[in-house]
């Protein structure tokens, strides 16, 4: 039983008691209880929607900080806390400390903390800061990844390590910042390293023992990608060896396509969905072909990993357009027909709606300014590429490609409100020039081959927070922001949407209109994902990390103060961000009186 299971029962209305008595033993089932937040995306559909209604558009102006805690860690704080029963769990960037806070006591003192050894070599192997995207609660265990290629399961009550499994090879450039997804007794994890020439995979581990049950590669032979003729059917391709014949000989061996983003799950179809990263290297001329299944969405059965369908968003990626962004599951009425869909906001700037049973493309419209492709052909599933935006060594410099490789959206997950029928997402408004160069593969070093300076996109603001109507396939409203917006999103049944900004504001806006309701300066830029929970006192709270970093740690100039031997000139496209934020990891909780 998790700690505080008694509070878990008390904190919910009597009518829900029976459900919760059962649910307290089974982590994933708890996701239906809006008092808690037991998995990264709130639920298997990855909606990040909380049914709590105490905080509303009318009273959000009275929000105030009720608690904060310094994690003692300076890396970028992506990811989100979990709340299970009366305990809040926080996993930090490297060195991946796991804190368990007692929400029943004033000041939320720790019940315990778990400090694993995580190899510092991982700092140099992780492409884009030393982030961690969060933990998953299941069966009395907190399951998460250490940056150095291990998955651990920790007893949620005591902090005792139950198992630790090596899943990735640091010496080959693999790191593991992603958040696992647990389905029944299977823990699904993936690797990072698209900039290090790794070969992408997801693995299914046994929840009870940590043993690796299956490995499904993104690229390579049918046997390696777990595609068998009886089970696998790609909606736009026939034939076999699709993830092998779209590569030059042996190109797939260091071809990237890692799985560093978010996973979702449809219990009825028994399918796990996730996106794959860019093909390696960034110089496309070293890997001619479509490079399947890089920059794709894959649907697998979690039990044995078997691949059921796959769809590629950006064939022959020329622009580092990873597709690891979350796949949000819902139902929509499109052309008069009710469809079980998957909605995905790709780095490439298009918002995709797919039939999640088959992978068939239903719509694809730009949600940010896009110029690398004119449209996506719904008959073939392929983008109609503007050939003047193609890149490669022989093309020299390709100018003014929108969006930049930071994507219309990147790691920061969107939210879906079944109440407003809108998606909410944080976007970047950047374009780039792209100069490719020949890349040499050396294990454990970057395998890139491109220089890609950024400029502001149309309008001059570097980001925007938007609401997206998936049926009309257009924006419902938009809030321009001076900097790229890099936080995840929380939306609630109270009609409020929460997000944070790179310059360190945490904001609440009206879910219907986007009208600003409240904001608070949290001390460092926000790249994490807000959550909501009901405390043991019965009140609704909102929690979020502050902690500037991720890609922006690399390219924002002088935002670090911990290393006297590393001072940097301001970024050309964003010269004053360091005026507003430095690194620094904090957990914040907000509530009403």
């Amino acid at each position, binding site marked *: 039983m998790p700690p505080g299971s008694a509070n878990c029962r008390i904190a919910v209305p009597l009518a829900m008691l029976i459900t919760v008595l059962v649910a307290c033993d089974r982590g994933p089932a708890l996701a239906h209880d809006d008092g808690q937040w037991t998995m990264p995306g709130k639920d298997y559909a990855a909606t990040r929607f909380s049914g709590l209604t105490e905080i509303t558009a009318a009273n959000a102006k009275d929000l105030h900080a009720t608690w904060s805690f310094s994690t003692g860690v300076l890396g970028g704080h992506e990811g989100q806390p979990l709340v299970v029963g009366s305990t809040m769990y926080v996993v930090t960037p490297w060195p991946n400390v796991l804190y368990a806070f007692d929400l029943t006591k004033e000041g939320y003192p720790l019940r315990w903390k778990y400090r694993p050894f995580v190899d510092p070599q991982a700092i*140099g192997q992780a492409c884009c800061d030393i982030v961690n995207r969060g933990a998953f609660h299941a069966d009395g265990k907190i399951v998460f990844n250490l940056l150095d290629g291990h998955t651990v399961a920790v007893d949620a009550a005591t902090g005792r390590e139950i198992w630790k499994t090596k899943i990735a090879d640091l010496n080959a450039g693999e790191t593991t910042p992603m958040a696992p997804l647990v389905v029944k007794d299977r823990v699904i994890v993936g690797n990072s390293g698209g900039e290090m020439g790794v070969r992408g995979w997801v693995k299914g581990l046994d929840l009870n023992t940590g043993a690796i049950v299956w490995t499904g590669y993104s690229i390579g032979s049918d046997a390696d990608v777990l595609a068998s003729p009886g089970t696998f059917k790609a909606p736009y391709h026939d034939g076999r060896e699709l993830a092998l014949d779209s590569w030059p000989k042996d190109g797939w061996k260091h071809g990237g396509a890692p799985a560093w983003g978010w996973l979702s799950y449809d219990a009825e179809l028994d399918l796990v969905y996730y996106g794959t990263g860019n093909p390696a290297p960034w110089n496309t001329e070293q890997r001619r072909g479509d490079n399947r299944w890089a920059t794709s969405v894959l649907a697998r059965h979690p039990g044995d990993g078997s691949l059921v369908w796959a769809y590629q968003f950006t064939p022959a990626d020329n622009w580092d357009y990873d597709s690891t962004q979350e796949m949000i599951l819902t139902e929509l009425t499109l052309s008069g027909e009710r469809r079980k869909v998957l909605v995905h906001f790709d780095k490439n700037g298009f918002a995709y709606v797919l039939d999640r049973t088959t992978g068939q493309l239903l719509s694809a419209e730009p949600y940010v300014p896009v110029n690398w492709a004119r449209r996506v052909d719904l008959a073939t599933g392929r983008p109609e590429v503007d050939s003047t935006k193609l890149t490669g060594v022989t093309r020299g410099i390709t100018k003014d490609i929108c969006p930049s490789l930071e994507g219309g959206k990147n790691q920061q997950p969107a939210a879906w409100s079944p109440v407003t029928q809108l998606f909410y997402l944080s976007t970047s408004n950047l374009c780039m020039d792209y100069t490719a160069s020949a890349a040499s593969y050396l294990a454990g070093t970057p395998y890139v081959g491109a220089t890609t300076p950024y400029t502001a996109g149309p309008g001059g603001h570097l980001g925007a927070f938007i609401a997206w109507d998936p049926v009309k396939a257009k924006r419902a409203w938009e809030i321009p922001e001076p900097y790229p917006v890099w936080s995840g999103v929380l939306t609630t049944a109270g009609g409020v949407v929460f997000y944070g900004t790179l310059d360190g504001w945490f904001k609440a806006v009206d879910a219907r209109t986007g009208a600003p309701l409240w904001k608070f300066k949290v001390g460092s830029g926000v790249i994490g994902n807000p959550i909501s929970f009901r405390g043991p006192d019965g009140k609704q709270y909102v929690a979020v990390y502050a902690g500037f970093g991720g890609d922006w740690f690399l390219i924002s100039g002088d935002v670090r103060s911990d290393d006297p031997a590393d001072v940097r*000139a301001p970024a050309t496209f964003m010269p004053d961000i360091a005026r507003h934020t430095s690194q620094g990891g904090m957990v914040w909780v907000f509530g009403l009186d």
Partner: protein
Amino acid sequence: MRGVRSFPAVAVLLLLRASVAAAQQAVPPTVRYDQHVSAGGSAPPAVVPRNPFRGDSGVAVQGSQLFSGFNCDGCHGGGAAGFVGPSMADGRWRYGGDDGAIFMSIFYGRPRGMPAFGGALPAETIWRLVTYLQSFQPPDSTISTTSW
């Protein structure tokens, strides 16, 4: 490539290609990481920690090519200005900036993620990289102070 007279561009490319090929073929991965890092501190006996190319601007240009060719820029950024790894162009050194210290950092690696290239690159190639890293003009003394 401009300004390289004694060592034309083609030769740099050949050196790079040969070095990369050697690195790809002849590197036992078990030697490149743990043992090199844990061995940190004692100089390889054959190497005198004095840069034979110090101040040679032609070699510095070759070094800048090697800096890209061996993916150093993937971590330390274009122009060594800092990226996921620290800036090498700011005149400040976490592990020391004299000839031998920079050489050792490249040869043995450093514990917070710098790979050991000693098994992959001949000493002369490392010295060319050191020459490049030493070639930056002393930075503006105000680089560590920003005002708005």
